[in-house]
């Protein structure tokens, strides 16, 4: 069983190599099925390993394997070693299973694209890197996976490389996440220099033993690791790259920018939770960042008119929820929401991809409309996805996961009523913008006609994900509704449980409130966007709407403060002022030449004069000695 966990990431990597080396000679079908198949088999192996892990009766609930000694220099040791415990298992499951569905979808989606093989090569490399990230036993290997997913994200966002804007979006993503990664590597240095090891489990134990709660070194290290998480997960203040990343194909947005890579930050914080519990200040910051991000992203989503950008801001917002949960110590709630979010967000992106493809690359929702009757399968799955996103009470999985977060944001000892209010406001916004999407895209007059019907390869994954979005939540039911704790039981093997304040269990009340909020959001969406009264038109043209649409103008601020000065700095000194030293030496030599050549003017009398002067001088010297 231990060897299988090494095979899980190896399969996509082997498939990547095959596609890179022999892709030119394989047929499209073959490359597509090799690409998707490797992920599929990996998913199967994950499930097998998972069942084995769940059924294991021995005390240790994890599998490890050391492949080879990676670096062994001076006192720095790191191996290529993998470790699968329940946290990694959940992530592996989502990555491989949802990834498999997305790969199947891509066979249909990218059918007519000339870069078909290249696409699957990059996607497989991504899946391999992400698996390495979550399976890594030591933090250096995790960093390898971390950067690997960053690379693949760059390659896939800029996949259609002929358009320069795609390249710009790809570079923006890479650079912003690299800023976070640099903070993270400094944190890793501090950890290594303090503890002499990169192994995550050892670090956690040593930190617990040696660092005091709230000590400055713990705070600094935790803050640096948080920096890395913020970059990858697109939270404040490093969230500006995600909406632009929608330039990539929809399967990429689904896999990387919804389900997996952007949740790497959540994984990091969960994995190194000991460090964060040693730095309560940082944990509070996580919660605050989560709350702020979910609100800002929620408002921004409300003003977008590009279908994928709405979903992008929605992703930022939902990850904000996960950060909020992490910040208050509700780790299992955060992971639960991650899993459910992966299902419905992937569903939404894939469905959006179908719409965009079928409407000939139309992204603007105001140019869509009336697709309810024209594309029923897409409509119903999209509706289920949005309902889950809006946390429609009781029937959708999203309700259970988001609700857990909202409850813990108040009831945890690190929680507060303000955090809860932010979360509820966010829930309202979520329902509002989700159903704005639905009403404008699927109802009303059809502005653009669908040009063809999507095939089974694209529709089947939608259906499967829709089912999961509805029923996936039943593994974790709150006390008021049946108290099923399958999921949190699994997670709490590895992560600490949430500590609740000493209050009575009013969870039912909070669920009631959030249910009402969700429904009222849907109703208001109906009133504003279906009935379309006049004041919506004025709002659409207002300054506030424009501010929301630009994502609170973060892009402009960063452009002025960072981008323009750096470009100016690079441009002004292009010729390298240090070269002036050489140029001045050369000029000095030339000057000397010009001066001295005045004495070589070819005039005989000049020479004679110098003779005479010389003789006079010598005679003077001789006479005065």
């Amino acid at each position, binding site marked *: 069983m231990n060897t299988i966990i090494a095979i899980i990431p190896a399969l996509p990597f082997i498939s990547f190599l095959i596609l890179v080396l022999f892709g030119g000679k394989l047929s499209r079908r073959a490359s597509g099925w090799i690409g998707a198949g490797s992920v599929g088999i990996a998913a199967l192996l994950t499930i097998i390993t998972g069942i084995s892990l769940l059924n294991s009766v021995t005390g240790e609930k994890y599998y490890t394997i050391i492949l080879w000694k990676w670096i062994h220099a001076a006192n720095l040791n790191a191996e290529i070693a993998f470790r699968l415990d329940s946290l990694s298992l959940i992530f592996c499951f989502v990555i491989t299973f949802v990834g498999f569905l997305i790969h199947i979808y891509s066979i249909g989606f990218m059918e007519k694209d000339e870069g078909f093989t290249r696409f699957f090569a990059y996607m497989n490399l991504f899946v391999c890197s992400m698996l390495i990230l979550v399976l890594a036993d030591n933090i250096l290997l995790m960093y390898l996976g971390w950067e690997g997913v960053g690379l693949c994200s760059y390659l896939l966002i800029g996949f259609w490389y002929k358009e320069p804007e795609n390249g710009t979006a790809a570079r923006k993503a890479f650079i912003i996440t690299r800023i976070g990664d640099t903070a993270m590597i400094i944190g890793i240095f501090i950890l290594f220099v303090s503890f002499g090891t990169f192994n995550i489990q050892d670090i956690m134990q040593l930190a617990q033993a040696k660092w005091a709660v709230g000590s400055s070194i713990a705070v600094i290290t935790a803050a640096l690791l948080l920096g890395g998480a913020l970059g990858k997960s697109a939270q404040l203040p490093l969230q500006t790259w995600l909406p632009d990343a929608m330039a990539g194909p929809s399967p990429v947005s689904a896999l990387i920018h919804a389900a997996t890579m952007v949740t790497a930050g959540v994984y990091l914080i969960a994995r190194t939770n000991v460090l964060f519990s040693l730095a309560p200040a940082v944990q509070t910051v996580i919660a605050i960042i989560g709350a702020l991000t979910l609100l800002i992203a929620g408002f921004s989503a409300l003003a977008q008119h590009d279908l994928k950008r709405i979903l992008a801001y929605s992703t930022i917002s939902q990850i904000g929820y996960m950060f909020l949960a992490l910040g208050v110590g509700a780790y299992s709630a955060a992971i639960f929401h991650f899993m459910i979010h992966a299902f419905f967000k992937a569903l939404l992106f894939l469905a959006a991809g179908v719409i965009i493809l079928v409407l000939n690359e139309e992204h603007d929702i105001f140019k869509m409309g009336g697709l309810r009757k024209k594309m029923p399968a897409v409509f119903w799955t999209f509706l289920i996805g949005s309902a889950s996103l809006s946390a429609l009470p009781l029937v959708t999985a999203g309700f259970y996961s988001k609700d857990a977060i909202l409850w813990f944001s108040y009831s945890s000892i690190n929680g507060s009523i303000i955090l809860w209010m932010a979360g509820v406001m966010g829930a309202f916004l979520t329902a509002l913008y989700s159903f704005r999407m639905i009403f404008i895209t699927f109802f009303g007059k059809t502005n653009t006609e669908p040009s063809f019907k999507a095939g089974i390869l694209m529709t089947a994954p939608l259906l499967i994900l829709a089912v999961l979005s509805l029923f996936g939540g039943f593994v974790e039911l709150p006390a008021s509704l049946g108290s099923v704790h399958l999921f949190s039981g699994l997670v709490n093997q590895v992560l600490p449980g949430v500590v609740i304040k000493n209050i009575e269990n009013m969870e039912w009340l909070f669920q009631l409130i959030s249910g009402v909020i969700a429904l009222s959001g849907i109703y208001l969406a109906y009133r504003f966007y279906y009935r379309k009264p006049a004041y919506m038109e004025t709002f659409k043209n207002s300054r506030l709407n424009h501010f929301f649409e630009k994502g609170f103008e973060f892009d402009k601020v960063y452009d002025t403060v960072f981008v323009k000065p750096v470009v100016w700095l690079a441009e002004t000194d292009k010729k390298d002022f240090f070269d002036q030293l050489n140029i001045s030496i050369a000029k000095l030599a030339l000057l000397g030449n*010009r001066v001295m*050549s005045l004495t070589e003017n*070819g*005039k*005989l009398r000049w020479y004679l004069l110098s003779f*005479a002067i010389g003789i006079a001088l010598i005679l003077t010297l001789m006479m005065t000695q």
Partner: protein
Amino acid sequence: MLTVPVETQILFAGILFFIGLVGLLVRRNLVFMLMSIEIMFNSAGLVFIIAARHWDQPDGQVMFIFILAVTAVEVAIGLALILQVYHHFKTLDVDAINKLKDDNS
């Protein structure tokens, strides 16, 4: 016989030399420069004669004859060169003969 002090005689030769030198430096015509060189040679010869008289040795006078011979040869060659210069440059202005000038281009 009029006894002129040696210093005066040498001074006279020096003045002659100086006249020759100045003539060499100031005149632009090659022929006149050659003449000035002649004057300088003769002043040097005069110094030899003065010294010979002063020390009562005949060697100075022998030197003077050497100098005459050398001067004659030198003038012959110099005039030949001047002829060539005139042939080439069509002028005897020494400032015009600056082909060895350092051109900074």
